[in-house]
């Protein structure tokens, strides 16, 4: 952190004014935090209730039962395991491709002096301006033509590269000293070896950040899987949740249980590796 102390010089920490300010500050922050977190609590209590009603789930649930989860498990049209695996494959592959492709390009744009490098970088960056909606229809039609609807490759391929990842990794490789590469080349390493053995290990923190960020984005992605996956077996969790919603609308216990299953893994991962997530988020803010 750039600033180790949050105290401003001469900060007065005594007197009624300080205390009343502190109380107001805590009251505000806590109210906001409750607004942010209570919905998660309601989701949990509803999912654990047999007959959820507003009064019975608001604070402490009257009875706790796993019945909604069991029902989800038993329904033949609800393929929890399959959807979970689909989502892991989808988000995992998207992340793997992004890390591979973006680190290759980021490295080249930072460390290899080739013809047209800066223009290409500008070109990559300007693709960030294209709203996803514009390419949705043509990409879908191309994949129809390829017979890739309802396939993993159809889900994954259009998301396999991302200009933001290139930008992030290029900045990171740029910050690493060029002398390392020169030394390795004098030792007889070729470009690929230099990249793989010298620079890539040094980029681990940036890769982890980008990886988590990409994985989370794909895990939560709704629009693309909705369009390309038209059959139950190929749904990812968010699309499946939409299908469950349409099928079991107003069976709130069931729907909240399904929502929890999507939210759960991401939330647990977040609480375990909070700093990485937040770092990824603030790095994405550095684009500007």
């Amino acid at each position, binding site marked *: 952190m750039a600033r180790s102390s*949050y105290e*401003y*010089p001469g900060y007065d920490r005594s007197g009624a004014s300080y205390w009343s300010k502190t109380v107001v*500050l805590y009251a*505000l*922050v806590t109210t906001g935090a409750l607004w*942010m*977190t209570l*919905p*998660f609590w309601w989701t949990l209590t*509803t999912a654990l209730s047999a007959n959820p009603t507003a*009064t019975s*789930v*608001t604070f402490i649930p009257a009875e706790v039962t796993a019945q909604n989860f069991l029902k989800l498990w038993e329904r033949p049209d609800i393929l929890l395991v399959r959807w979970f695996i689909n989502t892991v494959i989808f988000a995992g592959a998207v992340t793997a491709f992004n890390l591979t*492709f973006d680190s*290759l*390009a980021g*490295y*080249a744009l930072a460390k*290899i*002096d*080739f013809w047209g*490098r*800066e223009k*290409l*970088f500008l070109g*990559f*960056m300007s*693709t960030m301006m294209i709203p996803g*909606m*514009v390419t*949705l*229809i*043509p*990409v879908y*039609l*191309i994949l*129809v033509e390829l017979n890739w609807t309802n396939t993993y490759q159809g889900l994954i391929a259009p998301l*396999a*590269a991302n200009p933001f990842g290139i930008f992030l990794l290029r900045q990171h490789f740029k910050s690493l000293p060029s002398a390392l590469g020169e030394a390795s080349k004098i030792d007889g390493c070729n*470009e690929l070896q230099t*990249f793989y053995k010298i620079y890539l290990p040094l980029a681990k923190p940036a890769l982890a950040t980008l990886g988590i960020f990409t994985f989370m984005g794909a*895990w*939560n992605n709704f629009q693309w899987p909705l369009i390309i996956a038209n059959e139950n077996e190929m749904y990812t*969790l968010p699309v499946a*949740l939409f299908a469950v*919603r349409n099928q079991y609308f107003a069976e709130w216990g069931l*729907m*909240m249980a399904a*929502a929890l299953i999507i*939210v759960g893994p*991401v939330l647990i991962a*977040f609480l375990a590796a*909070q700093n990485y997530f*937040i770092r990824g*988020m*603030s790095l994405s*803010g550095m*684009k*500007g």
Partner: protein
Amino acid sequence: MAVGERDESGDSGVVSAVRDVLDGSLRARLGVTEDQNNLMGFLFVAPNVLMFSVFLLGPVLYAFYISFQEWSILRNAGTWVGLANYVDVLTPLPVQGGLTNLQLNTSVFTDPSVNLFWYSLKTTVIYAVGTVPLQIYGGLAVALMLDKRVRMKKAYRAAYFMPVMLSGAASAVMWRWFLAADGVINNFLEPIGELVGVQLAQNWAGNPSYALGGVMLMAIWGGIGSNMIFFLAGLQNVPEELYEAARIDGASAWQRFRHVTWPNLGNTNFFVIVMAIIGAFQVFGIALVYSEGGPVYATTTIVLLIYQRAFEEGKMGVGAAMAFILFLIIFAFSYHQYRHRQQEEVTY
């Protein structure tokens, strides 16, 4: 974008000339020819160039082409119809009459049956105006509060960030329940309403007047956390000496914020506004899952309309035309913001 240009200007002139000379001598020392560098460079970027050509640039051109077609998904082929899709989408225009007596035709914004595109554009603008400031300044307020000496700072930060982790689909399903006629929110509102003698509990999702409000509430809830993180990062970059100097000058808390914090957050602010508005114009998933665009088109945003036209009704040509118009709107806005930002920077 701003990034690229700044990088390039940083590298330009004397610095880059020197670098070129050094690179050249290095190359000679290592025995690496220019051709080898070019080849390696191209090989390294090839996967990305391929992906971007096939899934971004090619499709943009293809979309432009499709927007002039009446496309049949059943035959997977189209017929050329010229500008007909654009005309269909945009007429009746929000203005009517000749050039001399131009009048505003507000009915396109008030009645979805006159022109759904303009109506959904209005819906999207209301959504953007209602959510973006609260997302951003809510995020800033939380960041300022948490930047102070607050106990359990990490826990608070996690709490505010939790909604950000959520898929839009999940959050829409959750809020649909909280805002149901017999849901948790009404359970809170009912007694308050009885106390003040007003009917506060409503059928939030089923009533066309309130449905969009629910979507907006959800977006604000999910948007504050990420902006908080951006501003927390931005606050780290404000030089402490400036606060010190301001304090010595006897500046009040508000003056310190106004003259030290705020100007130094300029970059973050610009980025956050642009991203939030671009995001708001593309809102889709939460509106679809929450209320499927209804009731009576109340939550039909532009992207939702494009989705319905293209993927539910199979009118790919009309969908592509709408997508292009949306592209132009977003582009014009981003460009305007960018120019505005540049002018601001000059005045500092």
